[in-house]
């Protein structure tokens, strides 16, 4: 590569080569996906739920824990308030979900039925009932009261005794503790404790015996249904918000304009004028149409050519219509077009031609760090008999053509002398709104100590049909 070429490339990068934005979008696409999955796995790993009782820090001497570490029995005779048989789960309640829940089955209420279920912090005094001390909360069987941080309980629910199944949960969306008895919700209270919370049970009179279910067996309480209701509650709150009536139409229309989906746009416009009442978007929306109506037909034509794999013709048209875009053969846009041309040659099996083309047009990109990965992936296509099934098969997918078409589309938009901000050629209104939505949800969750469900746009989009 000549010296002058190198210089012009550098200048281009300084000028913020817009094409680089899309390079990022396709370079190692699959790799990113894989990374993402790995992160997700790690997250789940990190969030190992409680599976058994912690026998090490339990109040030794007062209770006997069964060998499966899932039931506990008070074997002493209780004398005072500091010989409670308290036992925590081996792990704190996982936080990165909508709801955490566990249950106990009271096998024997013993002499006094002083059983309790709740949550405690790591430093909880293991000889006191959950709820009696700070940073703990417990629903007590003998009086049906709820205790939160001191020895005086508040009216809450029914008492419970032998044969009853009682559950305790944390609703992270509502930031509440809730309790159940025999499958029914008893009530909920605001969760005012911070830090890891351990599922905790306590027995405090002779022969009291309790089995705990951390989910290894089906719960008596219908947790799935409860979760669905909680989601619905939140959804309803959101649905109550009103947005201007035609704002969605405007956003869809601007999207079609932005990406040059001209045929769709025309059908959309014809149809929306014949609806009752007709929708006139242009007058009421704040969308700057001029910015995105620019060169609509050219953009549509080039998109079609690229989508059909007709890169030769696309290059020709670009040279004719927008020479400034393809002038610098070392720009990211030219690079993507060359790569795509190479890919199309491989697709149709013209391997010799692909090799020749690659030597002329791609080899010069080989030692430039930003381009290297994609060049390598492209060339790797040659190594496989069935490239589609190989690790670089992603290059042969339609989405790769789409990235190239989007790049060209953005570059043409950027030649519009009236474009106010370069970001506007890169992102449609819809994309800017979705980015804001995602960023807000991520930030909110981060400020909430990463509690609750993670926001995933993809999950929302593929979410089940409501029947």
């Amino acid at each position, binding site marked *: 590569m000549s010296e002058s070429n190198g210089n012009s490339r550098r200048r281009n990068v300084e000028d913020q080569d817009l094409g680089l934005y899309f390079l990022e*979008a396709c370079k190692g696409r699959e790799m990113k996906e894989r990374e993402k999955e790995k992160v997700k796995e790690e997250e789940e790993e990190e969030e190992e739920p409680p599976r058994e009782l912690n026998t090490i820090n339990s109040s030794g001497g007062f209770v006997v824990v069964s060998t499966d570490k899932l039931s506990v029995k008070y074997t002493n005779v209780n004398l005072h308030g500091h010989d409670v048989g308290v036992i925590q789960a081996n792990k704190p309640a996982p936080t990165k979900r909508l709801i955490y829940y566990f249950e106990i089955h009271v096998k024997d209420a013993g002499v006094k039925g002083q059983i309790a279920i709740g949550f405690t912090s790591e430093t909880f005094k293991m000889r006191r009932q959950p709820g009696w001390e700070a940073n703990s909360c417990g629903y007590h069987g003998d009086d049906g009261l709820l205790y939160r941080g001191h020895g005086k309980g508040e009216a809450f629910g029914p008492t419970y005794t032998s044969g009853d199944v009682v559950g305790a949960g944390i609703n992270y969306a509502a930031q509440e503790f809730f309790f159940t008895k025999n499958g029914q919700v008893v009530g909920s209270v605001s969760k005012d404790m911070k830090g890891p919370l351990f599922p905790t049970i306590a027995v405090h009179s002779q022969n009291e015996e309790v089995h705990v279910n951390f989910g290894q067996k089906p719960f008596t309480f219908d947790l799935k249904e409860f979760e669905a209701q909680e989601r619905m509650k939140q959804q309803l709150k959101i649905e109550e918000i009103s947005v201007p009536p035609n704002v969605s139409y405007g956003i869809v229309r601007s999207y079609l304009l932005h990406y040059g989906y001209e045929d769709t746009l025309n*059908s959309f416009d014809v149809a929306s004028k014949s609806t009752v009442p007709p929708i006139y978007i242009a007058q009421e929306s704040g969308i700057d149409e001029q910015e995105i109506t620019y060169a609509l037909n050219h953009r549509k034509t080039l998109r*079609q050519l690229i989508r059909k794999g007709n890169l030769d013709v696309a290059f020709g048209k670009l040279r004719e219509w927008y020479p400034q875009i393809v002038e610098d053969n070392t720009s990211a846009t030219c690079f993507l077009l060359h790569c795509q041309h190479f890919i199309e040659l491989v697709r149709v099996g013209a391997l010799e031609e692909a090799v020749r083309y690659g030597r002329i047009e791609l080899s010069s990109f080989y030692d430039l760090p930003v381009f290297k990965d994609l060049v390598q992936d492209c060339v790797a296509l040659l190594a496989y008999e069935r490239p589609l099934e190989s690790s670089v098969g992603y290059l042969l997918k339609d989405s790769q053509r789409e990235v190239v078409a989007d790049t060209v589309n953005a570059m043409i938009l950027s030649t519009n002398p009236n474009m106010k901000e370069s970001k506007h050629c890169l992102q449609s209104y819809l994309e800017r709104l979705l980015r804001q939505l995602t960023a807000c949800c991520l930030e909110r969750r981060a400020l909430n100590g990463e509690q609750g469900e993670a926001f995933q746009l993809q999950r929302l989009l593929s979410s089940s*049909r409501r029947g």
Partner: protein
Amino acid sequence: MSLFWLVIRQLAEIEAMAATKKVITREEWEKRLNDVRIRKEDMNKLVMNFLVTEGYVEAAEKFRMESGTEPDIDLATITDRMAVKKAVQNGNVEDAIEKVNDLNPEILDTNPQLFFHLQQQRLIELIRNGKVEEALEFAQEELAPRGEENQSFLDELERTVALLAFEDVANCPVGDLLDISQRLKTASEVNAAILTSQSHEKDPKLPSLLKMLIWAQNQLDEKASYPRINDLSTAMLEDSAV
């Protein structure tokens, strides 16, 4: 507790609240926005979902060709659905009922409220067209028996028949029934029922996501100040007032 201590405590609380509100500069926020990855195919799906649910069948067809996005419903069913909707919008309720039954007779069988509203709309159209006798006959034979089963149906029936009591219906207390919006309401009810019968969501996802954006911003406002998008139609980031 003395007043002095109350004031001190309140001051401390205010201070604590102010201190917990995080300030995110525009620069930081834009960096976060840039780090978000929105997949093109997801946006395409969202647009396709809108076209399909709102019944833009030709646009959906074109969009499939231009973007390679597959619709989440058989496009042919949209045409049928839109024909029903249009029939109600144009006041051809009988025709609409026939078309719904051709599509799937269970829709009206399992949805008495919808069926009643369609019959009510039919009555409204008869009254609109001045067919008083026919309207009365229809009300007595078709609608009154249903009203006996359900009090709210009866109330609506009485309200509708009241149209006959006024000479100048346009300005009478129940004149809203003759309004175009009543047709649109009925039309969208049928539309939703057909979509539901096809196991499709009755509303497009895009408006919900827009609502969610407003909600998420409001929620975040409590804990942080950051650049907001206040006007959805311009998608412009505006610096917060702090």
